[in-house]
Each structure stands twice: as C-alpha cells, then as structure tokens.
C-alpha cells in the first residue's frame, strides 16, 4: 500500500491481531525487561532464531549412527550429550538429554504432562499436538489408545513405557531399526528417522520400493 495519502485515519499496529493472551503477556514482559535493561532485545531475537533453527535432522543423525554402530549406540544410551558432541551436534544448554531405546519388547513414548518439555536442541520446536492438553493427559493414562491414533499398534507382549518428562531431563527415543535396511548408509538411514519416531508415536519404516 502506498503512503502518499493524507493521514485522516489511524493505521493498525503490525502483527498483534488475534494474538493469544499468553503471547501478549510474554511480549509485555519482554518489553518491560528490555526497558529495565535486564535483557537485550537483540539477545532475545538471537535466542529465538537459534531455537527455531533446530530441526529433527540432528536427532536423526544420532539415531542413524546408533543403528550403524553398536559402540556408538552404547555411548548414546550412556550419555546422550557426549554422543551428540561427538557428532558435532549441539545438545543444548542446561537440560540433560537421555536416549531411550525402543526394541522388539519395549516401546517408549515421551510426554510432558506439566507443560511441553522436549529435546528442542536436537529435535527443534515441538509439534503443536505435543503441547496440547489431550495428548498430555491421555498419553499417560491410555498410551496404547493414543499410539493407535498415530497408527502404531503394539502387541500385548510389548511393554509400553510412557516417559513423563517433568523436570530437567529431556528424553529422545531411539526407534527400532526397520527390517530390510541392512545395506543402507548412514545418510539413507537418517532419512528414515522422523521427528515422531524420536518422540515414540511412530515407528521407523523402510522406504517401500516404488
């Protein structure tokens, strides 16, 4: 829109239309903290950029290496932070990352009932459903029902282990390596590892031949 007209009408402010209450509150808080010199606006921007720049590709690299190299998998299970650093990945700042292995007999699925704790440094921002009340409340009480809705049906002889991430630890699931992937290299393996498999609501699948 050009601005060569007279200003006889007010212009709408940018970008806050329909803003959720919580977002407005955070923005107001940020403005106060900036005004009081507690935080620097540029630091906040950089931090947000860093958070949203992360993707599940980093977690997938860890899983693919673990599938390809049993010794690495042992190190990943022992100390996921060190294992991530070994692959030049950034495991994030304060929270400890713990990797959990899905096998033929155990299936882990991760939830945060209290909020939305998630291994953001390795998986990027969580999906919206992960933060939703239905996912958070139903996964702990009816994990098999929730998994069914995600398309995962597990036999009764598989132990379903829900992991409720309530505090400082962030959990990352190592999905089972799919059958028929023996000849694949690490990059091809990583392509089979989706975000949802590392939350535990999906199983890794080999690509079907076209």
């Amino acid at each position, binding site marked *: 829109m050009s601005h060569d007209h007279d200003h006889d009408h007010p212009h709408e402010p940018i970008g806050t239309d329909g803003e959720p209450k919580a977002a407005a509150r955070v923005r107001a808080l940020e403005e106060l903290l900036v005004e009081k010199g507690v935080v620097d606006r540029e630091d906040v921007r950089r931090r947000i950029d860093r958070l949203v720049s992360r993707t599940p590709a980093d977690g997938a690299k860890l899983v693919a290496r673990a599938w390809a190299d049993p010794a690495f998998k042992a190190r990943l299970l022992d100390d996921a932070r060190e294992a991530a650093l070994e692959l030049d990945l950034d495991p994030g700042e304060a929270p400890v990352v713990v990797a959990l292995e899905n096998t033929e007999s155990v299936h882990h699925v991760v939830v945060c009932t209290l909020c939305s704790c998630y291994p953001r440094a390795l998986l990027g921002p969580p999906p919206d459903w992960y933060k939703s009340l239905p996912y958070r409340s139903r996964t702990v009480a009816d*994990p*098999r029902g929730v998994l069914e809705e995600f398309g995962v049906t597990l036999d009764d002889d598989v132990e379903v282990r*829900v992991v*409720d991430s309530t*505090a400082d630890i962030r959990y990352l699931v190592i999905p089972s390596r799919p059958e028929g992937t023996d000849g694949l290299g690490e990059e091809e393996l990583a392509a089979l590892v989706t975000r949802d498999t590392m939350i535990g609501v999906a199983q890794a699948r080999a690509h079907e031949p076209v």
Partner: protein
Amino acid sequence: MSFEPGQRVRVAARTHPGHHRTPGYVKGRTGRVERVHAQFANPETRAYGADGQPAQRLYLVGFDQGELWPRYQGAARDRLLVDVFEHWLEEAE
C-alpha cells in the same frame, strides 16, 4: 534420604501450594527407582526468583500402569516412568 536403583519408593501425597514438578497422578503411588539422575536446582524456589539451592537429586521412578489407573486398559506389563525430585519420595516397603 537418598535412594538406590530398584528401591521401592512412594511419592508423597502432600499438596503443595505454588509451582512444583510432581504430577498429581503419581502422588501417594508406589513405584521403583529406575535411574538416579544428577542434582538440579529446586524448581519450587527457583520459580519465585530464588537460586533453587540446595539442589535436589532427581530420580526416574517407574510405576506399573495398574498402580496409577485402576481401570487401565493396556497390557499388565505396561509402565510409566516419571522424573521426581528426592524431597517428594519416601521409602516404601
């Protein structure tokens, strides 16, 4: 009091006014220590501007799903693992 892996523990049934990280559905329930994590700043005081000291040990505690939900529909072997701070745990027989 500290706890060992495999030890039976009960989550305190107390209410806590204000921020805390112990979900209501495990309060008063008995499980087993699955993992012993490190110590972390106490979120109950850190949430209100304090430094969260003394730090509290964090445990991953495992419960049989049937212990948490009497009408649980899944398999009897299914479990739920949840991180609980040491000051919320009691020794269980």
